[in-house]
């Protein structure tokens, strides 16, 4: 109870030291903003690189022409090239289907175990929420969409947000789908369709089949496929990079030796970012983050030094009044944490504001939780050297200093 009260009071007292609090809060806010931007960059880069450097995505080139058994045959062939291509194994793979149910509606299946491997919604595209994990959960693009009727060409424009429920009813059966995640379509390159002309829904494999039934779509005639493969190894390693190139070459050989009757017409994502460029990109962001973290650590040490130096007499008085080293530390650490965490939240507001005003999609293009939490963790870690310094300084203050003349 005592320690908690000391901490609560220290927060109150920090805010009362208005000038120092505001100055350091603003500096921490700026550092937090930089850290968050770089973390966000790394988060995006990491997931992009994962697919760029470890993954290969295959897409059909002619819609409505590839049948289920063709895809299965191709998939088996690809998995077999591990021997010929020198690959020990394809680490992971996913097959996703998509179909146009209506002029205004396209549905995509997600492999629930590896939803991130769907070429169209890799993790770096998620703006809000999460991947669907149950049969009635779906992902949709951010912002508004047009839902176009087939019979009279009338389009309905609507906004769509996380938590919204979409109901599909054919007069007998009802399918209710809840939006649990949204993704950014502005970066999508895999399927060249203007998303604003259709409602895109990404859903569970089984729900995909239910939707086909509801719309009375012939499965074999409507299937189109996308395949994603990931090879073993570290991201940004030469070996992994070579392995994915070998896989790509192997697939090209299979496809060139056969015709569409066997496998359909597929295109692989053959243009990788060169390894050196990926490494350079990742290094630049990490170096920037490093500078921001070092700046933050210097700031935290500076604040802690100022607190412990200019409040030395106050520390002595508190000790003379019976505060243990731990209680004094709680008071001062409370001040440092209050300043840094308040600065972090101000910084977050700045970042969100910048994202909001620079985004095409209002309200949705906000920071992902993972970037937010990682930044918060880094800001707390940044304050640790300062807290360590304060602890050392406190031990060096004798309560008898309270009796000495100023």
């Amino acid at each position, binding site marked *: *109870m*005592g*320690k908690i*009260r*000391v901490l609560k*009071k220290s927060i109150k*007292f920090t805010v*009362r*030291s208005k000038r120092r609090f505001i100055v350091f809060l603003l500096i921490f806010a700026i550092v937090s903003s930089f850290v968050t931007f770089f973390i966000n960059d790394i988060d995006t880069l990491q997931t992009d690189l994962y697919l760029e450097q470890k993954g290969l995505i295959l897409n059909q080139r002619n819609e409505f022409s590839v049948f289920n058994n063709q895809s299965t045959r191709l998939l088996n062939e690809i998995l077999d090239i591990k021997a010929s291509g020198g690959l020990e194994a394809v680490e992971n793979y996913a097959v996703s289907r998509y179909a146009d149910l209506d002029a205004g509606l396209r549905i995509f299946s997600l492999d629930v175990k590896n939803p991130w491997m769907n070429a169209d919604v890799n993790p770096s595209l998620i703006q809000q929420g999460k991947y669907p994990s149950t049969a009635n959960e779906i992902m949709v693009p951010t912002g508004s969409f047009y839902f176009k009727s087939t019979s009279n060409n009338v389009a309905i424009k609507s906004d769509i947000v996380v938590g919204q429920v979409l109901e599909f009813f054919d007069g007998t059966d009802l399918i209710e789908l809840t939006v649990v995640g949204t993704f950014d379509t502005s970066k999508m390159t895999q399927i060249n369709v203007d998303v604003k002309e259709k409602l895109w829904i990404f859903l569970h494999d089984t729900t995909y089949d239910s939707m086909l039934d509801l719309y009375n779509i012939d499965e074999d005639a409507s299937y189109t496929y996308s395949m994603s493969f990931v090879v073993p190894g570290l991201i940004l390693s030469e070996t992994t990079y070579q392995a994915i190139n070998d896989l790509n070459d192997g697939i090209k050989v299979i496809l060139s030796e056969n015709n569409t009757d066997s496998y359909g017409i597929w295109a692989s994502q053959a243009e990788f970012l060169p390894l050196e460029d990926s490494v350079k990109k990742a290094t630049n962001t990490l170096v920037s983050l490093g500078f921001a973290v070092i700046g933050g650590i210097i700031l935290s040490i500076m604040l802690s030094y100022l607190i412990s130096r200019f409040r030395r*007499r*106050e520390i002595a*008085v*508190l*000790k*003379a*009044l*019976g*505060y*243990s*080293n731990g*209680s004094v530390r709680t008071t001062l650490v409370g001040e440092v944490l209050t300043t840094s965490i308040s600065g972090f939240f101000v910084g977050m507001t700045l970042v969100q504001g910048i994202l909001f005003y620079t985004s095409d999609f209002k309200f949705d293009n906000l920071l992902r939780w993972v970037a937010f939490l990682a930044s918060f963790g880094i800001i707390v870690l940044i304050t640790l050297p300062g807290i360590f310094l304060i602890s050392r300084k406190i031990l060096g203050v*004798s*309560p*008898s200093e*309270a*009796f*000495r*003349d*100023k």
Partner: protein
Amino acid sequence: MSMEVIIEAKNLGKTYKRGRSEVVHALDDINLKLYEAEMILLYGPSGSGKSTLLNVLSGLDNPTTGTIKFSGDDITEFNQKQLTDLRRNDVGFVFQAWELIDNLTAVENVEAPMYPESVPSNVLRTDAITLLRRLDLLDREYHYPKEMSGGEQQRVALARALIKRPKVIFADEPTGNLDSETGHLIMRLLKTVCRQGTAIIIATHDEELREYADRIIRLHDGKMTEERV
């Protein structure tokens, strides 16, 4: 009626090294007893050892030689935690420059020593308000130190020392920064506290304060002489 001995110091000595070889005897063979409800005034010129004696008797500093018994326990054998407990539970301090914390209101300054304790906040606030009322500061409870006069600040400091109901109050020049009238006001308050059972030891230069003392101790070059009032 026999009074309980609160502090008993025997053969107390404190030496410092000044420079490489010079040894300063800040305290030399001090023998002293402080009883409950007794007020001792400690006189001496600057550098005579007054502050050192206060530090040593209150457990803020260790003597080089001798023993100090506080309610029967030898505090020279205490570890840091025991000394902290002693300061927290049994000792109050009043400083020359008051040493109030600028960002705390008067009532919060009074409460501050008790913040680490497991006393409910409402009980603590009631105690602090009661003390401020006793010291005629009720209308200043939510004022910050900068908004109060020197006398008012010293009364807040006194309330801060009293909130723990200490056995002893150590005061270092408590009237040093006050005008004569306010100085006497503070001394009268200290005397009232003393009559209620708290032992008080005051280091001062001010000979006008002799009238409040039960005993006077004079220090010169670390040596002690005692005179009855």
